[in-house]
């Protein structure tokens, strides 16, 4: 069982990101479950979404408290939310950020990834400068860093989940896949991740 938590702000597409990754994993033979945090959804407010994937049917229905990986769609959330809560050591924290992983000052026991998903989204006309839709890009970056899912499955799943501008979203996922930056857990201690 793999479980993932997505942190974002209402309107950024965290829920769609969870569904997109779930659909891509399902195409590769995983059983999946994706769901939003059960709170009122308000544009701009912090939101969370969750994903489970397993090679057996998933019968449990409750929130994810100990994720294996975490997405952070808005880097400002790093200052206001403990995105590492319950996170498994060695798990990926993938942040939408123009900075390099080592610049984020996150603990070395986690693998840190960054993707400038906002710039990529805007370059492809996804959302607006104040509200870029970064979900397809950041899922592309996740595929590159973790290898849990192929880029092709992500790209193939996009038209179903994102019916508006599917081509631009697919291009954003490909670009983020190519540009993702990662630092494995334990890299600072000189150990293999």
């Amino acid at each position, binding site marked *: 069982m793999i479980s993932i938590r997505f942190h974002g702000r209402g309107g950024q597409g965290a829920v769609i990101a969870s569904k997109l990754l779930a*659909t891509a994993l399902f195409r590769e033979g995983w059983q*999946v479950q994706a769901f939003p945090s059960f709170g009122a959804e308000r544009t701009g407010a912090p939101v969370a979404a969750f994903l489970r994937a397993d090679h057996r049917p*998933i019968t449990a229905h409750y929130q994810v408290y100990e994720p294996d990986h975490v997405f952070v769609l808005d880097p400002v959330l790093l200052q206001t939310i403990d995105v590492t809560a319950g996170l498994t050591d060695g798990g990926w924290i993938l942040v939408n950020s123009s900075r390099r992983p080592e610049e984020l000052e996150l603990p070395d026991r986690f693998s840190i990834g960054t993707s400038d998903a906002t710039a990529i989204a805007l370059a492809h006309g996804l959302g607006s400068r104040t509200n870029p839709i970064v979900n397809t890009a950041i899922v592309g970056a996740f595929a590159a860093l973790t290898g849990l899912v192929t880029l092709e499955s992500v790209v193939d799943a996009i038209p179903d989940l994102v019916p508006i501008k599917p081509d631009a979203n697919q291009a954003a996922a490909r670009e983020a896949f190519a540009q993702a930056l990662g630092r494995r857990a334990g890299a600072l201690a000189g150990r293999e991740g």
Partner: protein
Amino acid sequence: MTTKVMEGTHAISHAVTLSRARVIAAYPITPSSGVVELLSEMCADGRLDARFVAVESEHSALATCAGASQTGLRAFTATSSHGLAYMHEMLHWCAGARLPIVLADVNRAMGSPWNIFADQSDSLSQRDTGWIQYYCENNQEVLDTIIQAFRVAEQVLMPAMVCLDAFFLSHTSEPVAIPDQKLVDAFLPPFAPPYALAPDDPRAFGGLPSGDGYMELRARMERSMQDAVGAAETAAREYAEMFGRHHPILEEYRTEGAALLLVTSGTIAGTARAVVDARREAGEQVGMVKIRLFRPFPFAAIRAALGGAKKLAVVDRNLSFGHGGIMASEIRSALCNQPSAPIVFSYIAGLGGRDVTPAVIDDVVSATQAVERPESDTLWVGLKE
């Protein structure tokens, strides 16, 4: 057959389309809105040959379904919580008029205060209105149950409610197999009621009857509800033969020789499976029984499944104020007058969407094992005061 990752709300929409409903009337309410959003799109783009009626209230939604069903058309609506409460008068009417409408209720807590999360008290407070009631564990079961509900309802001419937990199913995306239309058509024949409102065959419906027949009509409704137990069992079995998925009206999970049985419904049953597995691995005689069909209450199946256990731990995500867990109280009544009856522990958990994790269910098992009898008729789980 194709399998797609979809939310529970959309599993319902696909099931309604496969069931070839002809009239859909609804007033959207969170968290059920997705059901009728997709259905309205399906009606607009021709995927479903049905009239979509956007009404001004839930009361009108069910009244519209009643009119459609009375003319012999398959009718469907979806709602939640306060919407279902607003339908209350029409729920009684549809049952009395013998209209086999299917209603999807996304189980949501009742206000005050406002709460949009999972709680079965909305539909369970409608249990005496004459509607068949199913409770579902996952989105596949939701899709399959909607199709079965139309068949059972139309066979016994009583309306049916298919209930699913808010968010834990309604907004959760899971793989759902969408059966082939031809197979569904073979399973669910066209709706052909014995009497229908038609201009060329005038009849009176629902008027004030002369004479003294009301009580006999109520007795006929009750006989039909009892018939629905067998009809639901047959529908589940034949559905399994055609589609390869069996959802028993009462499911027994690893109950062989179990001294302690968890009894629950909805998504809590799914989460409980791993707890039962872990206890069995530890050599403990623990099993789980899932209530899928709640109305008509399957007395014989309940007695057969539960009568041999020493203790029952019933977990209710619902509450009847001044009485306790609703499913627990119904189980107690079913076990009354039986030669041997287990001790019933009644737990209230997860009201208003509070998470029921494996740890919560495991604590329930431990608490039930720890004492011979419960220290009170109702036990609250995880209260913060």
